[in-house]
């Protein structure tokens, strides 16, 4: 339900004021101890103690601020390398890689379907050689690497592993994350290459490799933030993300892993909006919900299984408007505040030019500064969970957890579980319906967006200096590809791809080693994907063309 028509700041509304959260429940005029939980230990808990409502760490941010983790990537590998280093120099805590669409779908830069898309919204990676260039001069011993890759996750994990080995870095020392979240691709982003079964097979293989060989690396980062972008409200985002996360746990348990081997290696990536209190409550609810689910459903007892690490994007791009883009910096601040008050471990940051283009270096610099100002100049880090004990926050945390549980039950009991619910587009329908509702609220002025439907600026705003994409990138990438193919050992490649195709046909545990081998002899990502398609007998992207 929408709130009453927004008023211009300072005006008095007519009649009784009713306020609703984005999650749909009414927000009371005031909150008192009557609405807040009575049992602190059971319900809230100390920071770093079950159920981890307040923070996963005893010290919170007092000894260690959250880690800024802006993601970037565009053009050729050297371009991405340059931006990564720039961001690290500005205070970014890791390398977080945005791959271009062809790479994410397993298409080489010279594929006809890749035209106009090469290096456009992410870095173009065609082979291990590109990975080497992209990570040149970045010390994998000390710099964590996040890879935003799902359908082709095992390939980039293989590439990272090989680059690490080239740098003489033990795989056991690598830190970072592979998102490896194919179900969110199915429900939100559409970047799948194969049907569900082969995709889950690859997901399992990727996770197995990471669990076995890279103990400092996360095998999953469930992208709740993308559910938000499709239209999910905070409760839906939490419930659906949690359902997907448990699905991944189940997948690995079926492969013979113990809960304590898997659970600590999954993290959740949440959205934030300017509704900072509701978002902080959602993050607190997420930690408590996870802790309780792991204990009650999976019998987990280990601390590392019960406490879930969270990332957020501060704030989600769907809130960053085209009009008056300088104002988006304020929205950044609200998202950072929401995330900090919610106790996340890492924060991605959206840039003010979000509605125009991929971020300029200056816009990303600003996004980092917002995090740094809030972390260093405000007192948000001075104590753990500063909002804890607020009657409002505790009541909302409870409500969001309750509502999320109810929706999770619906997914399981009424919709036949996550796989079936996705196949029948139940989750998608809920999210899309809400997106439409939101858009109507904005266009009818019932949901205020400053600069858009209320308080429109008239004084001239300075134009943004946007990132300019290089139109020659594709051509150079094609040349690089040709160069690679003439310099590598083609019979090694042919053999490796045949072995890979067979491993895909078996859908067994030989897949990852076959992928590694193919990667190491400089097969291209497109060749690897095609071999997988032949082996799986399935290719949803190219078969329909």
């Amino acid at each position: 339900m929408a709130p009453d028509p927004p008023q211009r700041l300072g005006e008095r509304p007519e009649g009784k004021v009713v306020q609703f959260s984005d999650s749909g429940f009414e927000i009371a005029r005031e909150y008192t101890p009557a609405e807040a939980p009575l049992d602190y230990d059971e319900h809230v808990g100390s920071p770093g103690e079950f159920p981890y409502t307040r923070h996963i760490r005893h010290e919170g941010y007092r000894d260690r601020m959250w880690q800024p983790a802006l993601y970037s990537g565009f053009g050729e590998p050297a371009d991405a390398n340059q931006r990564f280093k720039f961001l690290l120099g500005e205070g970014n805590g890791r390398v977080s890689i945005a791959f271009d669409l062809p790479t994410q779908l397993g298409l080489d830069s010279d594929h006809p379907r890749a035209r106009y898309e090469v290096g456009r919204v992410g870095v173009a990676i065609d082979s291990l050689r590109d990975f080497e260039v992209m990570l040149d001069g970045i010390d994998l011993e000390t710099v964590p690497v996040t890879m935003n890759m799902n359908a082709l996750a095992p390939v980039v994990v293989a590439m990272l592993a090989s680059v690490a080995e080239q740098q003489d870095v033990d795989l056991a020392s690598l830190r970072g994350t592979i998102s490896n979240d194919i179900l969110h691709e199915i429900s939100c982003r559409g970047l799948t290459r194969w049907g569900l079964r082969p995709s889950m097979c690859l997901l399992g293989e990727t996770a197995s490799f990471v669990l076995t060989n890279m103990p400092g690396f996360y095998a999953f980062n469930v992208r709740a933030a993308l559910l938000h972008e499709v239209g999910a409200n905070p409760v839906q985002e939490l419930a659906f993300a949690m359902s997907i996360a448990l699905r991944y746990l189940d997948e690995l348990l079926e492969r013979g892993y113990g809960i304590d081997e898997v659970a600590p290696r999954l993290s959740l990536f949440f959205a934030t909006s300017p509704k900072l209190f509701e978002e902080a409550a959602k993050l607190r609810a997420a930690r408590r919900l996870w802790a309780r689910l792991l204990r009650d459903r999976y019998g987990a007892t280990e601390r590392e299984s019960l406490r879930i690490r969270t990332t957020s994007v501060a704030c989600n791009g769907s809130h960053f408007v085209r009009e008056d883009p300088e104002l988006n910096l304020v929205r950044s601040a609200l998202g950072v505040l929401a995330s900090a008050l919610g106790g996340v471990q890492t924060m991605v940051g959206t840039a003010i030019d979000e509605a125009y283009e991929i971020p300029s270096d200056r816009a990303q610099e600003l996004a980092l500064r917002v995090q740094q100002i809030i972390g260093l100049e405000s007192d948000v880090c001075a104590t753990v969970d500063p909002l804890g004990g607020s009657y409002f926050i505790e009541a909302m945390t409870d409500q969001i957890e309750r509502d999320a549980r109810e929706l999770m039950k619906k997914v399981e009991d009424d919709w036949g579980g996550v796989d079936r619910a996705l196949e029948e587009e139940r989750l998608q329908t809920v999210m899309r319906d809400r997106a439409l509702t939101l858009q109507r609220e904005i266009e009818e002025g019932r949901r205020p967006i400053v600069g858009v439907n209320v308080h429109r600026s008239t004084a001239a705003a300075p134009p943004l200096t946007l990132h300019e994409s290089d139109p020659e990138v594709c051509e150079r990438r094609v040349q690089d590809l040709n160069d690679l193919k003439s310099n590598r050992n083609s019979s090694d490649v042919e053999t490796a791809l045949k072995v890979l195709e067979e491993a895909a046909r078996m859908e067994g545990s030989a897949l990852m080693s076959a992928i590694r081998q193919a990667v190491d002899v400089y097969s291209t990502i497109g060749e690897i994907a095609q071999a997988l398609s032949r082996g799986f007998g399935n290719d949803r992207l190219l078969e329909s063309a």
Partner: protein
Amino acid sequence: MVPSRVRVLIGKPGLDGHDRGARIVAQVLRDAGCEVIYTGTQRTPAEIASAAVDEDVDVVGLSILAGGYMGLTREVLGELAARQTDCAVVVGGTIPDSDVQTLKDLGCAAVFPVGTPLKEIVSWVTSHGRAR
């Protein structure tokens, strides 16, 4: 004589899978009385043009968020011309103001960058049914 409903094809060319905007536009046009076919994501220009002809649409609306709007639009226009159809082509998405005229020069009847009010899109589309 009852005016026939405007027939619209909403298409997403290229590789991007983000279709929140495309779906919203499709629904809003339906609510306004149009007959709307949504192609889904990751369609080739040829597929979009074939669908436009098969469905005998008045307007083809392309949704492009990942930056390839110039090349993709040009290809769709080319595919439509090859099929000798006279439907109008409009483009929406992440398009800077500086490129709007270029798209029109290529042959787009209208351009609706991110932030264009839905009212404006509906008004344009519903007034561009062809005589049947």
